[in-house]
């Protein structure tokens, strides 16, 4: 019989190994297919193109069906996923700011990583911005937390919970609608893209593979893929290098009330943004490193890996500012586009629906700023 300490240690190893493999896989797949969630919304507003948005839609559809199948099979220990709560107006505000930030940064929190791994110094600038923004959020956390509480409405986390039904009927409705669009797009040849890029992975295949990774994450960790709390934790670590104990004075970093329970081992671990090792460190740091490594591996195998740093100063400023806005928004929402679009939307989470509603005008505004200010 394992003691609690051995179970805890084993859980940390499980999370680290799982995060590393998931991250490398996701980074590789997204690099090969150009699966940039930020670009999908940006191209809609800049070029009236919905080509890649179709595949995002299909990712949500596939995820919805597979999450429900996994739930019905008994493999999902927690449903809805942990950390999805009742909706708040702050979810939409955060989504809007996130949309602005991800377009200006040239990629979302995941896109930034795989492009950084492939050698993009602009993405490194965005990465630095993400850490800065996530850390700056700690200064406004008490105010924002109060605003979140004041604007929280309803008592349910998901639409099925509000309706008092199991998710299956809604998933079946989504299936019926999505099947119509899938066949329509398939007949029009819009689901197979021509590409002259080496090693191109069809986005439809990428959507299926990324969905499988999301399901795997939910089974092993109990939640969808998410990485943004780790950015705040990184910022906290950096801040401790400076004199004084400013980190210790910020409730956002010192709050240790949240607990994470692993569905396989049932170990209960700490979950915080503070500068110490806990479940966030074990789960999200390997994911972050893994996604960058996956992008690097893909680029190296294609013989396309190179450190690219020659870009206009405006684009570097845009990347940093976009990263800062995205970092703050990921804490204000809370959560990022991958967490909400690929994790929460498929299970009809209210917070994710509001995030999506806010993301659209944010991406529009970000695209406008990009064209009028950055690339002119």
């Amino acid at each position, binding site marked *: 019989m394992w003691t609690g300490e051995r179970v805890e240690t084993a859980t940390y190893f499980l999370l680290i190994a799982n995060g590393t493999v998931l991250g490398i896989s996701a980074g590789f797949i997204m690099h090969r297919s*150009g699966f*940039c969630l930020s*670009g999908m919304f*940006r*191209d809609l507003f*800049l*070029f009236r193109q919905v080509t890649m948005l179709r595949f995002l839609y299909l990712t949500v559809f596939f995820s919805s069906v597979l999450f429900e199948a996994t739930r019905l099979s008994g493999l999902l220990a927690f449903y809805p996923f942990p950390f999805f709560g009742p909706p708040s107006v702050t979810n939409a505000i955060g989504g809007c700011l996130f949309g602005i930030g991800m377009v200006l940064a*040239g990629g979302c929190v995941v896109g930034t990583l795989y492009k950084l791994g492939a*050698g*993009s*110094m*602009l993405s490194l600038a965005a990465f630095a911005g993400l850490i800065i923004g996530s850390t700056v959020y700690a200064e406004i956390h008490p105010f924002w937390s109060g605003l979140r509480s004041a604007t929280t409405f309803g008592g349910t986390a998901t639409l099925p919970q509000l309706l008092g039904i199991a998710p299956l009927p809604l998933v079946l409705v989504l299936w019926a609608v999505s099947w119509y669009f899938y066949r329509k797009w398939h007949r029009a040849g819009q689901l197979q*893209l*021509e*590409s*002259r*890029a*080496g090693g*191109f992975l069809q986005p439809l295949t990428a959507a299926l593979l990324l969905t499988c990774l999301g399901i795997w994450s939910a089974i092993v960790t109990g939640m969808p893929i998410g990485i943004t709390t780790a950015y705040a934790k990184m910022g906290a670590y950096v801040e401790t290098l400076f004199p004084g104990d400013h980190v210790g004075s910020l409730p956002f970093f010192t709050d240790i009330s949240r607990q994470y329970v692993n569905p396989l081992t049932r170990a209960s671990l700490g979950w915080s943004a503070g500068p110490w090792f806990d479940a966030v460190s074990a789960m999200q740091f390997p994911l972050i490193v893994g996604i960058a490594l996956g992008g690097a591996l893909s680029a190296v195998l294609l*013989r*396309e*890996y*190179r450190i*690219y*740093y*020659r*870009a*206009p100063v405006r*684009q570097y400023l*845009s*990347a940093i500012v976009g990263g800062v806005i995205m970092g703050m928004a990921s804490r204000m929402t809370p959560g990022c586009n991958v967490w909400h679009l690929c994790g929460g939307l498929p299970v009809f989470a209210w917070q994710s629906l509001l995030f999506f509603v806010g993301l659209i005008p944010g991406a529009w505004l970000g695209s406008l700023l*990009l*064209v009028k200010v*950055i*690339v002119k």
Partner: protein
Amino acid sequence: MIRQTCPGENGTRESRPHLIEFDIRGQVYPSTLLAALREIDSHRERIRSGAVKLLFRTDNPHCTKTIPDAVSGMGHDVSVSRDSDHYLIIIGRDT
């Protein structure tokens, strides 16, 4: 963006079009596409007449589809090839 011109093989314009080169590697998308479209638009008559060809060096795989798609819609010839660790997109026709 680095810009170079390469005269024709015999130093004359009559034998082959001038090749104007743009290095857009390392830049964020869609600035690469927008910059390419801007240059194509400013040289459009000379491209159509065969006086010049434009060459874009890019490391962004997305550009290898979006630039040719946009250019084809304008009626220009376009080719995409690989050069070591990046891509070459050449717009224009031989005279």
